């Protein structure tokens, strides 16, 4: 489904700002990949580059999604093709209702695919169901998108969007950070219920505890812009115990 080869990326207009230094990653249909790594190692940058954020410039390498290069596509085109990014820091948009925003997002996806738009009625029903499923306080979704939401509420709102939009590749950037135990379980249950042979996940996390609920197929360790180790679920336990010292030392020696 997704194949990343030797991906290098820098910040636009800043010299010597390379953050991703040759990422290789292959995600097959139906797989769940976890990415762990120290602060500032480039996890969010990778997630944003995959989603097409214009602040970054890909200087080398390729990203192929469903057999086609997506590097030339704008963010909305990637979304239309089934990519989704749950943001580490979701933006606040005053005056825009989550409902209105999600309907517009669904509509533009349908439009791009030449499909019919969902009726307002059907959408309302779906929306209400999902609001309940992710345990968002219903008064919250009557407010402005993310404005004044607590950290955990923002993350739940990302989950709501994930569940409504049903993407084929979902990238979750620390969706578990700042969540209470109940919310954590909801995120995990959401992901697990959406797991299917046709849908893949890339879950960026700092905590092994999420992986107790979501069993990943593959775990990657990202350090200083490179994937330095790939393994099974046990790798997460190892990191939890030993930290990243060893990898940082190795990466430092290579640098």
């Amino acid at each position, binding site marked *: 489904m997704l194949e990343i080869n030797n991906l290098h990326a820098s910040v636009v207009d800043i010299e010597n700002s390379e953050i991703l230094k040759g990422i290789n990653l292959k995600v097959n249909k139906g797989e769940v990949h976890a990415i762990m790594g120290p602060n500032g190692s480039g996890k969010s940058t990778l997630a944003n580059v995959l989603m097409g954020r214009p602040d970054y410039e890909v200087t080398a390498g390729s990203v192929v999604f469903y057999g086609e290069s997506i590097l030339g596509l704008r*963010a909305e085109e*990637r979304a*239309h093709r089934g990519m989704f990014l749950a943001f580490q820091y979701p933006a606040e948009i005053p005056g825009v209702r989550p409902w209105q925003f999600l309907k517009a997002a669904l509509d*533009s996806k349908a439009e791009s695919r030449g499909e019919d738009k969902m009726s307002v009625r059907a959408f309302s029903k779906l929306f209400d169901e999902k609001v309940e499923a992710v345990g968002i306080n219903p008064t919250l979704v009557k407010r402005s998108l993310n404005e004044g939401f607590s950290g955990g509420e923002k993350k739940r709102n990302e989950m709501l969007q994930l569940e409504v939009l049903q993407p084929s590749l979902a990238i979750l950037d620390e969706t578990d950070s700042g969540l209470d135990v109940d919310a954590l379980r909801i995120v995990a249950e959401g992901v697990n219920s959406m797991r299917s042979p046709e849908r893949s996940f890339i879950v960026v996390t700092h905590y092994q505890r999420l992986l107790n609920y979501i069993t990943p197929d593959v775990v990657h360790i990202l350090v200083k812009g490179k994937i330095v180790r790939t393994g099974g679920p046990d790798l997460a336990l190892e990191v939890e115990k030993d930290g990243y010292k060893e990898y940082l030392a190795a990466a430092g020696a290579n640098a």
Partner: protein
Amino acid sequence: MTNQNTISRESDLSGGEYKWGFVSDIETDLAPKGLSEDIVRLISAKKEEPDWLLQWRLKAYWHWVDLFENEAEPTWAKIDYPKIDYQDIYYYAAPKGTNEAPKSLDDVDPEMLATFEKLGIPLQERAVLAGVAVDAVFDSVSVATTMGKQLGELGIIFCSFSEAVKNHPDLIKKYLGSVVPYTDNFFAALNAAVFSDGSFAYIPPGVRCPIELMTYFRINTEGSGQFERTLIVADEGAYVSYLEGCTAPFRKTSQLHAATVELVALDNSEIKYSTIQNWFPGTKDGEGGVYNFVTKRGRADKNAKISWTQVETGSAITWKYPSVILKGDNSVGEFFSVALVNNHQQADTGTKMIHIGKNTKSTIVAKGISAGKGSNTYRGQVQIMPGAENAVNHTQCDSLLVGDECSAHTVPYIEVRNPTARLEHEASTSKVSDDQLFYLMARGLSEEEAHHMIITGWSRDVIKELPFEFALEAAQLLKVSLEGAVG
């Protein structure tokens, strides 16, 4: 003033015999360019006005001449435009075939109706289906009034200003100029002298007008000015919601629009006045466009309420300060505004809240969106008079910048002459952030859609004050007006 046909001022006002010095054909539908006493008389005659109204116009005219000669055209606003040549404007233009007021839509020129269609104002359907009574002013003469009968049964009067002069002269005589006298300002004087037509509404005591009343204004003739005059009177305990839409076609030369709106809210009544102003803003390079100099003011008596809501996206120049005189005790004034400028547009707009009565309350929510090379100024005045015990004002004034070449300015004046007053003022300036844009685009919205969603969201507090269909139209307008500024 140059005027070959001038008769002395004294003889003007004497109302004696008058000869049209320059007009060879009184049947013409377009009076010659230029402003003179003759033109004022011509307009009044064309409309078969009573003498008192002609005299009022003439007084206004001479007052304007005085102001003009003393160079009293206002210059304090933050707008920059070439000097207006008042002699190079047509002051009267009637669409063909409307010498006789049409009795029904069938009497209206089909081409005119076609133009309305093009503007997205399907008069018939919209009026009937949406339950809106439309009074459309095409250039200067009102061409159609619908739903009149239904309203008539409630004693509501809604008609063109000219018809009101004919059919309800007592009401006009009583209220014309009572809130905006012709001496008020330069443009108000000009309007009083040459106003062509406009709308009149009267809601009798205790009556709640069951539908939104609506007028669509449009400037059509090249080089013509438009000077409509609107008067709305809500009698004691009455309620009315009035909508005003404005459009003008693409023209490379600038056009002058100087309207006056007077609202009279008697005890315990409420008037809600909503405007979508989309006069032609000029080309991308700043050619042409409407110069919009408008005086709007309402007087709220005891326990009365006046709300102004405006979405201003058009005009090359906007000079407009819908105001409320809070005369009666416990009266309420509101002003909700979104003004958008793009390309070379300039807007200097805001409001005046004049607190005279006790326990009066005013709310101001003014939002300015600047894009392109646009300049947007909020100018507001809150005045608390000595007798206004316990007056309250809340002002919120926000600017949003789209791009780097535009500007936003805020000029609040506050004058407090009673120590019991409570005033709050909040102001903010923000930019559409890359984070917001990317967030929306990552969910599938195009850059343009994302901008539009952010901007309408930001304007929401104002747009939600508009009646439903108008709110949709306003959101659409914001989108269209921003084209080229984003993406």
